[in-house]
């Protein structure tokens, strides 16, 4: 049977843990609000930029290396986006599981599947499973910056245009709501414009007297790299918002569980204390009885 002192110290440490988880929940909630606000705007920006490029490319028949789909993709680069820090529930596990399954199922379909890990959690997970990444990018700044996303984007474009890969896919957590994140595997390159175009191929789409400055091909050329940067930035921001959401939920559960634990321990503590008192009383009274008799 544990002593009173043992239980007391366990209660104390649980209370401390609860304080930490509660604080973490608050912090995540605040960060989530900011990230969420950011994303709403970014999504809209990204989608209007993409549909603009798609409309021009489709109606004006502009072709660009980043838009051309290869008929038989052989070399794939999988970019895996996780967080640097844990304590956020199934956030990273879902991504890692998905990636592992993808690698297993598609090993024979493609010639090579390379991985690029962004975030420490994927790198750690796959290190022990003998998956060698082409590179890992760690230390995502606490808030993803556009500059950083642009650097990643530049690298991806370079690798793609150099012909190292036929397709670049990104696995990340899409932010649905504070309590829901979806693992998404999105094809980053080539950029899929067919589905993004709002205007139909057959119709002239734009008004016939539309003025393009500079020529449509140049506009596409100019905007496409910017679009890609925004796209990468958006995915990273989604992932960050999803991470905060997941952490907030996980910490809320932890706080609740800690509360339950404290209640349970306090009950045992009180029962035990009562039992001690009762035994002591019995000892005293029986001692007194014995003296009397």
């Amino acid at each position, binding site marked *: 049977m544990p002593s009173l002192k043992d239980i007391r110290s366990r209660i104390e440490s649980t209370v401390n843990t609860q304080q930490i988880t509660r604080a973490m929940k608050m912090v995540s909630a605040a960060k989530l609000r900011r990230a969420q606000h*950011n994303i709403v*705007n*970014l999504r*809209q*920006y*990204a989608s*209007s*930029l993409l549909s*603009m490029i798609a409309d*021009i490319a489709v109606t004006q028949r502009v072709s660009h290396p980043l838009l051309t789909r290869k008929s038989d993709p052989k070399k794939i680069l999988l970019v895996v986006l996780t967080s640097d820090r844990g304590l956020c529930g199934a956030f990273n596990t879902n991504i890692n599981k998905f990636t592992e399954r993808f690698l297993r199922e598609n090993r024979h379909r493609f010639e090579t599947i390379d991985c690029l890990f962004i975030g420490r959690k994927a790198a750690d997970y796959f290190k022990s499973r003998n998956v060698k990444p082409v590179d890992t990018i760690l230390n995502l700044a606490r808030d993803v910056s*556009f500059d950083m996303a642009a650097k990643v984007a530049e690298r991806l474009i370079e690798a793609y245009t150099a012909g190292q890969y036929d397709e670049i896919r990104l696995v990340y957590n899409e932010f649905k709501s504070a309590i829901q994140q979806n693992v998404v595997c999105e094809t980053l390159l080539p950029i899929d414009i067919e589905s993004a175009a709002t205007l139909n191929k057959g119709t002239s789409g*734009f*008004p016939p*007297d*539309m*003025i*393009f*400055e*500079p020529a449509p091909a*140049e*506009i596409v050329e*100019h*905007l496409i790299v*910017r679009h890609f940067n*925004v796209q990468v*930035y*958006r995915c990273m921001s989604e992932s960050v918002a999803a991470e905060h959401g997941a952490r907030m939920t996980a910490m809320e559960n932890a706080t609740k569980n800690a509360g339950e634990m404290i209640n349970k321990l306090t009950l045992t503590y009180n029962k035990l204390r009562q039992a001690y008192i009762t035994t002591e009383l019995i000892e005293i009274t029986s001692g007194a009885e014995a003296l009397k008799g």
Partner: protein
Amino acid sequence: MYTLTIVTPEKRLVGGQEIEEVFVPGFRGELNFLPGHAPLLTTLGTGVVKYRLKGENQLRYVAVSGGYCQVQPQGVNVLAEIAEPAEDVDVATAEEMQKTVEHRLATESLEPEEIKKLQDELARARARIDAARGLRKE
């Protein structure tokens, strides 16, 4: 209704307000759009967007860089990479920036790539100063 929207990845600066006219730094220089302008699509240079809201006499200024501008019968959409309203411009920092960049361009021997980068930076600093000046003049 002739409206103006200016958005950046970070925020929405102007959200469909009705305007009288707008000046945009286009690919080939400054463009002025009034209601009834032909549909147009241009990439944005670095410069100042000036617009006048319906019923106002004053122009408002926004320093922008990168992105595109689309003119439709209903209005003008500006999707900029960077945009800063004149009220938010810190002129001292912008001037400081302009000086250091100008100094570097004049004195250091640089790679063509770096020169391009610095020139872009210089243009952005100038646009910010111009936007703020335009505001002060009124």
